[in-house]
């Protein structure tokens, strides 16, 4: 029996959910890389390398970190901003989950119901979801895997996402900082970011401002 691997796509017209193909979520202290359970430490280096190799590395912060609904969300948001600056990576928010097709501003935002539009428009080759509710993250991750060649990652505050190519679980500020530390370590070792130059779009709750 072959072990299903959660690889970057495009995989299929309607790819299967990885859980239905036998991929199991990691236990605490573990991550999963393309369907393989690995120690979390291995995941940090793997993710950092993927990010630095990418032309359009992108972070998709979701409502759980975009909105100042508790003290921890604020701390996480700051850590994510620091990670984006360290890479560097675009920040493209997933502010809410309503379908916005065909009016979505694909350059500036992403939506779980048609995330492929944002991936295609910006030619995003590596991304990470953080602060997105698990159900919507899984929807988006699977649709991206189905229709794009983007390598997807997830920094999940709960049990992780088997539909991402790489997933951490029990995300905390410390874990985001560990990922940033892995990026900085690789940079010190001489690994250079391959990101193409970009201008970070600025948004407020009423939309794009710059």
């Amino acid at each position, binding site marked *: 029996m072959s072990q299903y691997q959660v690889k970057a796509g495009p995989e299929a017209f309607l790819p299967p*959910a990885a859980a239905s*193909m036998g991929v199991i979520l990691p236990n605490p202290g573990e991550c999963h890389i393309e369907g393989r359970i690995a120690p979390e430490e291995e995941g940090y280096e793997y993710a950092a390398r993927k990010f630095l190799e990418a032309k359009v590395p992108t972070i998709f912060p979701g409502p759980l970190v975009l909105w100042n609904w508790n003290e921890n969300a604020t701390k996480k948001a700051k850590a994510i901003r620091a990670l984006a600056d360290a890479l560097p990576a675009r920040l493209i928010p997933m502010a*809410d989950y*309503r*379908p916005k097709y065909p009016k979505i501003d694909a350059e500036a935002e992403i939506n779980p119901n048609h995330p492929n539009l944002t991936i295609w428009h910006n030619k995003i080759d590596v991304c990470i979801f953080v602060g997105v509710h698990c*159900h919507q993250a*899984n*929807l988006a991750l699977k649709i991206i895997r*189905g229709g794009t060649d983007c390598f997807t990652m997830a920094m999940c505050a*709960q049990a992780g996402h088997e539909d991402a190519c790489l997933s951490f679980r029990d995300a905390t500020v410390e874990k985001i900082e560990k990922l940033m530390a892995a990026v900085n370590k690789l940079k010190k070792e001489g690994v250079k970011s391959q990101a193409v130059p970009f201008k970070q779009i600025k948004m407020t709750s009423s939309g794009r401002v710059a």
Partner: protein
Amino acid sequence: MNKPVESPNRVIKSQHVKLGTKNKMDQTYTDINTMFYDAERTPSFMTGSEVIRQAIKVASVGTSVAYPITPQSEAAALIGELYSEGYLDEYFRGESEFAVMGQCAGAAFGGHRVFTTTAGPGTLRAMENFPMWAGSRLPIQVCVTMRGVNSPLSIQPDTLEASYLLETGMLMWHAETAQDLYDFILKGFIVAEQPDVHIPIATMCDGFFVTHTKDTVMLPPEDLCLTPYDPYKSPVPCMDMECPPIRMMRDPFIMKSNYISYSTHASWQQEVRAAVERSRKHTIPLLDGLIDVENIDREILLVSSGTAVSQGREAIRLLEEEGIKVGLVKIKTIRPFPHEEIREATKRAKHIFVPEFNMAGWLAREIKAVVPDNERVIAGPHVAGGMTMPSEVIVEEIKKYLGIKVASNR
């Protein structure tokens, strides 16, 4: 398809309340593992309906909605007594089973742990709500005390209604005994509410056979209780039907006729089924596996769920007296269906008999779909409409199939 799951630690501590603190009824919030594996349990002799009451008494349920239909009415009434004693925050009678399930959804959307009971035609009347619960990721528990559903009217035991629930996206656990029912209700909340699962669960039992007969049940102390549901671990934001971020009524996919909306809907359905699969990891350690097996090295196996298992045990004893050795597989979870476990347990069997309390033989179909060489699966014997299944009927079925002469005294 699924890999075997090894999960050394049983589960899963809530961060919502501090373990060891007390609720308003002076019950101590207790980890499920402590409640089931460490606390001293004492025997009680009670009906299945009373068992449901006892489970809900320690389940930290927020809301229960009731509507009368035999054979669950007694359990629903007993939960009402718990409400009057202060164990639940909300309890009321709905206008119909359909209304009840909608009202349960509202309470679950609002962040309560929700429990209800139904049976037979009530289950079918409420049916539209079950895939809605699953799609909305609401971990509501409905105890289904199964009875006949078709005309002419029967209130008697029949498991046909389970077949209608198979593709709703709910977890489905089938209790054999009152003890199973007690354990499944409490453990069901814990599994269904895991953030990576977070879907509704039907804890099913065979009406009357379990609900209205007395049995010895081992119960943990009543001054312990489960930690309450933690809505902040939900995989979806608290949904409002009209307001962002989840505006389900004004922005449903059905309003948009294009590939993207269809694809999203398909992915949504896949995600619900993925959640059912994820429940294995949490269920296996809590239920000690999705199946129980006895003597599966034998050439003849009985594979069944619910009270058909009990009848099978006695049939096995009778056959043993005649020198015919038969093994047993008890299926505890219908969803997730334990396909890998059943394939493994039946790999040496030459004949797999599936006794069922319904005419459809839905469990035999499920088994035939997952085992190789499925001509080995014999769907039967079947009874329905409230008939009992004497162990002798199972014995007769097996002996007839094997070409052993059966005394015809009927």
